[in-house]
């Protein structure tokens, strides 16, 4: 009996190639009925017959370490999609459909997630949150001739050396420079304690750039790293205290930031904590609420930058339970959401400029696109990076649990 089963499985392997070939052939028709996410049902309900559809791929981590950020970024795109569900191309109205693919926050799953988007026939791709997965998927998009637009992946290597990857955010070196200068100006900091996750290119890259600038300004830097999944930060924070650090710089992902803030409170740390764009998150804000921690983050957008957008997305979040879950259960606007919103409109601009739904035409048009979004003016340089010289620095108001704008730094 067993051997029949085993040989049947062997056959299944061979047949699956053919069988799934058949399945996928029907896909373009079938997937029109599937909606990309909980909230966009209105936007992408089965399109009326004869209506043309253009698909935009959303390449985001919806599970894994970065799920929280990926979902918030996707939320911005979903809102934008519900606001403007169609685009005019060459006199015809196309319905825009967002097609998400979960890259699981992991570089080994990224290529097949990217391949899924390509096989769905997307015209271009937005994402990802997290630079590593973007780099891992880059070649898949390149081979398919599809352009990709990073929303908040700040590592220089994402766009360097290829002409199909663009991004609308600033880079790590700019962000680190802003924060290092801010630390020196605002706190007259001489000693900075830098803490990042071991082997995480985002954390370590920012810390390396921060060190370069901070030491050039005459400061001293103590660098430490913690292992993956770590939750005990007591010894690190005590060390920062013992070494007399004037500021603590921790450009870490959200779960770690929450731990660091709560533990710093119970250890009575008085040095201000500086964070990068990842710390601009409701979870971190909640952790700081009611404490004496001074928390400063650099980010892309500050609530109040565009009252119209703020109001719209808050209504959207509050009217939709799955959107609210994705946003961490409240309606504080994360900067990545604003960036996701802008990314969607930049994509529409590119499609309009291309005048067709052809990926190659969109790719060619994308480099020339300019757009003024809620997070500021967006244009691309030769490498495909956004020309950005503004970063917002905001601090947490621990009484109300809200962000307040501290300063706007120019590069």
């Amino acid at each position, binding site marked *: 009996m067993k051997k029949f089963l085993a040989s049947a499985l062997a056959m299944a392997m061979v047949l699956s190639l053919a069988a799934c070939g058949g399945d996928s052939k029907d896909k373009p028709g079938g997937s029109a009925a599937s909606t990309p996410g909980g909230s966009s049902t209105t936007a992408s309900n089965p399109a009326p017959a004869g209506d043309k559809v253009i698909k935009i791929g959303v390449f985001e981590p*919806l*599970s*894994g*370490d970065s*799920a*929280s950020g990926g*979902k918030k970024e996707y939320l911005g795109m979903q809102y934008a999609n519900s606001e403007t569900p169609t685009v005019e191309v060459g006199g015809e109205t196309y319905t825009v459909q967002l097609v998400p693919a979960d890259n699981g926050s992991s570089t080994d799953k990224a290529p097949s997630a990217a391949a899924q988007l390509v096989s769905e026939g997307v015209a271009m791709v937005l994402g990802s949150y997290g630079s590593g997965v973007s780099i891992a998927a880059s070649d898949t998009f390149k081979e398919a001739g599809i352009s990709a637009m990073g929303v908040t992946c700040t590592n220089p290597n994402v766009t360097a050396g290829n002409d199909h990857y663009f991004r609308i955010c600033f880079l790590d070196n700019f962000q680190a420079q802003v924060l290092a200068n801010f630390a020196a100006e605002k706190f007259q900091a001489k000693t900075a304690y830098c803490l990042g996750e*071991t082997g995480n290119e985002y954390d370590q890259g920012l810390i390396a750039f921060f060190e370069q600038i901070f030491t050039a300004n005459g400061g001293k830097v103590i660098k*430490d*790293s*913690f*292992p*993956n*999944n*770590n*939750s*005990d*930060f*007591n*010894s*690190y924070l*005590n*060390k920062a*205290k*013992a070494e007399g650090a004037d500021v603590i710089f921790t450009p870490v992902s*959200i*779960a*770690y930031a*929450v*731990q660091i803030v*709560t*533990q710093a409170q*119970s*250890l*009575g740390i008085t040095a201000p904590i500086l964070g990068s764009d990842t710390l601009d998150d409701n*979870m971190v804000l*909640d*952790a700081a609420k009611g404490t004496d921690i001074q928390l400063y983050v650099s980010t892309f957008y500050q609530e109040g930058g565009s009252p119209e957008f703020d109001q719209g997305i808050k209504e959207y979040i509050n009217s939709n339970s799955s959107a609210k*879950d*994705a946003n*961490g259960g409240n309606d504080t606007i994360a900067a990545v959401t604003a960036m996701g919103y802008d990314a969607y409109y930049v994509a529409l601009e590119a499609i309009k400029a291309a005048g067709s739904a052809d990926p190659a035409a969109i790719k060619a048009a994308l480099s020339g696109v300019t757009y003024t979004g809620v997070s500021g003016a967006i244009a691309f340089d030769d490498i495909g990076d956004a020309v950005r010289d503004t970063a917002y620095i905001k601090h947490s108001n621990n009484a109300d649990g809200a962000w307040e704008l501290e300063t706007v730094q120019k590069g």
Partner: protein
Amino acid sequence: MEFAISVLISGISVGGQYALIAIGYTMVYGILRLINFAHGDVFMVAGLLGIYLSASLPLYVALPLVLLLTVALGFCIERCAYKPLRSAPRMSVMISAIGVSYLIQNTATYITGGQPMTYPVIPFLSDTVKIAGTSTKWVTILTPFLVLALVIALQQLINHTKVGMAMRAVAKDFETSQLMGIKINSVISVTFIIGSALAAVGSMLYFTNFQAITPTAGALPGLRAFVAAVVGGIGSIPGAVIGAFIIGICENVIKSTQFTVFSDAGTFALLILILVVKPTGLFGEKVTDKV
């Protein structure tokens, strides 16, 4: 000096929390010769249960309920995933454990949406206290004492009750004890129940200290506790406790030096060193091969 004391305090406290998890590993291994990879995830689930239950129930109801549900989970895992494989090759049972661990983590990701959750504040335990110039939470101070009390109670149970005697017998020789009329399945269930209950207590202490819970939050304490159990000699309860304190202190000492990159690697290096010198851990029984 202050810094040294603070490092020691957090080392002992974390060590105590690892000890509670390590006992679960070591007891199951002693009886089934199974590395229960899912144990760290049971610990994480206990944390998540704490969050969900305390959201709607008062703490004095929620916490005992957490304990009960965690015990139920441990019991179910044993019945569903390990019991059917009792006669299967050892590797299959271990894979089953890895599979359960996968299932728990993925289900937790699905339910929480991958967002970090915040553990509720437990009055008194979460309050800040100052000793020797460093401030910390009460839970840090209380953990080692609570652990010692629980371990002594557990030792009494194993050495002076009928169930304990059955457990010792099964650990010594599985088949013979079966022939002697010991109900193997209920002994194994009791082992899992004790292990899960201790993991639940451990989770309350651990997550009061470190409040954010992600679906992988159990992986690192789980691995560390497992290493601790091996250092102490897997199968031995006092060994697991001492191993856990060694690992906890060692980890925090490395974190206080400039070689923080190696805080994981350092504990493993210590483990390998101990295994090379004493191949069955500090308190492990010597294995004699039967020909």
